[in-house]
């Protein structure tokens, strides 16, 4: 099978400073891939090279068998980081989603009937059909993420690229987004996303690429998420806890024993969640054994 994405000894960066060096990588059609790495490791830059926004200084990038040169290849849907969106821009949900068909819906400013019908289907699939006329600022984090996902889907992509889709959202929303992406992937669309959420990646994604200016490792999370690989990727001490199928990644805080000693006299306060009660009870903190590891 021909790869969907192919990096061949690619080096790129900004202002003569290399961000990614000698990247050789292949992603196959229909894959669901997570790019993990610390800030500045080149995750977003890797996505930008796929869209022709960053030109390789050496080597090449191919998408769908065509070399990427200065412009985005057809049939890529891109969902940017929500932090980069201008939330005060006067634009409604449907106006944003219709941007996905800017170049393929005729010369008139308004969408044709077919585009409008497709948009309605996608919005309903993503559960935001009732929000079409709302301003984008008036939505929750998860709904905002879905709006930009809907825009990408309306462009009928074969490859979906998402930059940090799980940042700044709560745990439930994060899980919903990842399940939604898994459903989209099952429909045959390849998905590549960047994230810092190692535990979510371990739970939801079948394939992971660890990146830090170069590809440190790639494979299934339960194979490559090891103390050694993650410590090399994040340049920090990392711990991997495995219990059966469960995989938990944690960083080891510096001077934990000192911190624990200084807080030894304090007690945790856990409010009783039952309605109408105002009582709380305390729980004894056990600083000496914070983690239970099974390697």
């Amino acid at each position: 099978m021909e790869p969907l994405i192919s990096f061949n000894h690619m080096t790129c960066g900004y202002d003569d400073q290399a961000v990614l060096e000698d990247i050789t990588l292949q992603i196959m059609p229909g894959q669901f891939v997570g790019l993990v790495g610390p800030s500045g490791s080149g995750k977003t830059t890797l996505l930008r090279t796929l869209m022709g926004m960053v030109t390789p200084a050496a080597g090449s990038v191919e998408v769908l068998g065509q070399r990427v040169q200065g412009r985005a290849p057809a049939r890529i849907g891109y969902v940017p980081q929500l932090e980069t969106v201008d939330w005060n821009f006067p634009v409604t949900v449907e106006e944003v989603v219709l941007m996905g068909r800017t170049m393929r819906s005729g010369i008139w400013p308004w969408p044709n009937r077919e585009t409008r019908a497709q948009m309605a289907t996608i919005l309903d699939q993503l559960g935001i059909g009732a929000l079409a006329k709302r301003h984008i600022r008036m939505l929750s984090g998860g709904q905002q993420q879905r709006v930009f996902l809907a825009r990408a889907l309306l462009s009928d992509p074969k490859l979906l690229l998402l930059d940090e889709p799980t940042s700044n959202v709560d745990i439930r929303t994060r899980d919903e987004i990842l399940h939604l992406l898994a459903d989209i992937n099952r429909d045959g669309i390849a998905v590549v996303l960047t994230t810092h959420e190692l535990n979510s990646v371990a739970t939801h994604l079948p394939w992971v690429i660890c990146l830090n200016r170069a590809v440190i490792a790639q494979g299934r999370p339960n194979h490559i998420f090891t103390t050694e690989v993650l410590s090399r990727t994040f340049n920090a001490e990392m711990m991997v806890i495995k219990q059966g199928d469960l995989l938990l990644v944690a960083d080891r805080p510096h001077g934990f024993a000192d911190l624990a000693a200084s807080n030894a006299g304090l007690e945790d306060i856990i409010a009783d969640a039952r309605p109408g009660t105002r009582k709380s009870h305390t729980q004894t903190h056990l600083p000496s054994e914070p983690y239970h590891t099974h390697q």
Partner: protein
Amino acid sequence: MIDLVRPWHYAFFVHGIIAATLVGGLCGLIGAYVVLRHMSYIGHGLSHAIFGGAVVSYLLQWNFYIGAGLYGFLAALLINATARKRQIGADAAIGVITTASFAFGVALISRVRHFTTNFEAALFGNILGVTTTDLWVIAGVSALTVIALFFSYKQMLFTTFDPEVAPTYGVPTQKMETLFALILASALIASMQVMGVTLIAAALVIPAVIGRLLTDRFSKLLLLTTTIGALCGLTGMYTSFYIDVASGATIVLTAAAVFAVVITITLVQQRRHGLKAGLGKQAVLVQSNDSHLF
């Protein structure tokens, strides 16, 4: 009682009010894009740059519209290109290029002291001196701008909303930037005779800000800013006739008064809404506390 028909007996007023309405609408329409691109002062800056171009075209004995138009277009492209440099930014790019261009015009005037043309009209506007040719230029530029923005609506919206991502969806953002620079320069040159270099920024910015307070929808914003701009031009021109105050200044003050009214109403509405929401929350809390009591 005020005789509203009387001004229409004067040809200068008829020319002036048509020009003021068209320029108001034109600047209102373009102003929406300018404000959303966070380049509110490009109108102010670019009109200063065009002043330099007007002086150069006079010295070279070129037609004002061609010479100043070309100069303004190049200045707008230069601002766009400089603004893309991350270290500089749009505001600083406008500051450097346009003031340098204005200074160039002033330097030429001080060096060549045998000017027969008075550049005061370009600086402060001369709406009562609008000729039939000026009217045709304003009408032509307005029509072409509406046509260009109508057929590039979707591309221009995406480019304005997210210039980084738009190319990944196939939008030719460079072409859109060039087209917008051309539209902006043409509109400013057409408007300079009416509003003058010093007041043009207000005609661009105020209707857009009023429109933004009234709607959250882009397509509606464009209609609103065009209408508000045109109405402020019309009302301002009429008012200036009766109170005997400079027309350009009256138009700007009319727009500012509309802004003051709209922002006051908006703030009052928001406060009431907030109060209602707060009361609603309190009611829910009382209700939930009550339910525990019983």
